[in-house]
């Protein structure tokens, strides 16, 4: 899932400084699950902004709405009237959601209420860790299901660096050494032979390094749009 966290209230206040009417839009998918931008968080942010701007002496009319997903037009379209009614829309979607609102309603000023951080999972309730770098050429089949692109600070492909000490990465922050994890996992599965093949330098063109990406599935396109 996409993991994000809310911007500090001071920063969001700065982003809505010119507005008298604000709409906070929550999203019911990833940001709900990481408690950053769901229905509850949208309500709390809207209330906080109303209270804070009133205390500051310049009260702002802040309402909120939440859609199931902010990254698909069908879910975003019903917001059209409410969005145009506001001076500024604060999107609590991930970066994709913010851009979807801005693209679908180009006349509306849309600002982000979250900092979208990484792709990851909750390892325990309340703790989310990065797991995927969206590199576009997944090699998890060779590393026992542990990603050295997302979890190794140096994105090494053929074992740990000299900074790996006691199974921990030299960057600290209680980060485990990804290659220690990979070694331990493959060892437990009796598949260490996978590490005997040297992986060549990674082709990063499938990753963000190759520029903004697009996937087209002709079999899924609607006939009218496919003929464009």
């Amino acid at each position, binding site marked *: 899932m996409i993991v994000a966290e809310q911007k*500090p*209230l*001071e920063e969001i206040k700065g982003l809505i400084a010119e507005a008298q009417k604000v709409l906070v839009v929550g999203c019911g998918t990833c940001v709900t699950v990481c408690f950053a931008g769901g229905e509850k968080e949208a309500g*709390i942010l809207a209330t*906080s902004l109303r*209270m*804070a701007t*009133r*205390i*500051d*002496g310049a*009260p702002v009319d802040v309402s909120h709405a939440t859609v199931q997903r902010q990254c698909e037009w069908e879910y975003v379209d019903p917001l059209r009237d409410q969005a145009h009614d506001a001076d500024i829309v604060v999107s609590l979607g991930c970066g994709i959601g913010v851009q979807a609102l801005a693209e679908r309603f180009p006349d509306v000023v849309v600002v982000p209420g979250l900092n979208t951080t990484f792709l990851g999972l909750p390892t325990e309730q309340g703790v989310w860790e990065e797991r995927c770098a969206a590199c576009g050429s997944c090699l998890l089949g060779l590393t026992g299901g542990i990603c050295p692109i997302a979890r190794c600070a140096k994105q090494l492909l053929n074992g740990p660096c000299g900074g790996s000490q006691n199974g921990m990465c030299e960057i600290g922050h209680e980060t485990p050494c990804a290659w220690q994890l990979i070694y331990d996992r493959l060892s437990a599965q009796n598949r260490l032979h996978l590490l005997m093949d040297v992986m060549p330098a990674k082709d990063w063109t499938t990753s963000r390094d190759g520029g903004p990406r697009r996937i087209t599935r002709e079999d899924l396109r609607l006939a009218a749009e496919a003929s464009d």
Partner: protein
Amino acid sequence: MPGDCHYLEGNANAKRRVEYTQHLLRSIGLEPERLRMTNLSSAMGHQFADLATRFAEEIRALGPSALRRSRPAAQATAEEG
């Protein structure tokens, strides 16, 4: 008391949520001391009365919150009338 919650970790969870709410109050511009959590059992009536009275005095000493002070005078009068 901490650790004696009938719902096991209920009061520990509540403590964390109260602290988060105090953080929210601070970011809004209100004093976090306006929210307090205390552990009592339902059998501690006297202590509850004492605590409530003292807390009320502390809040009175803080005075009206910035939110109440920011309320337009006409609206405040209408509400009190």
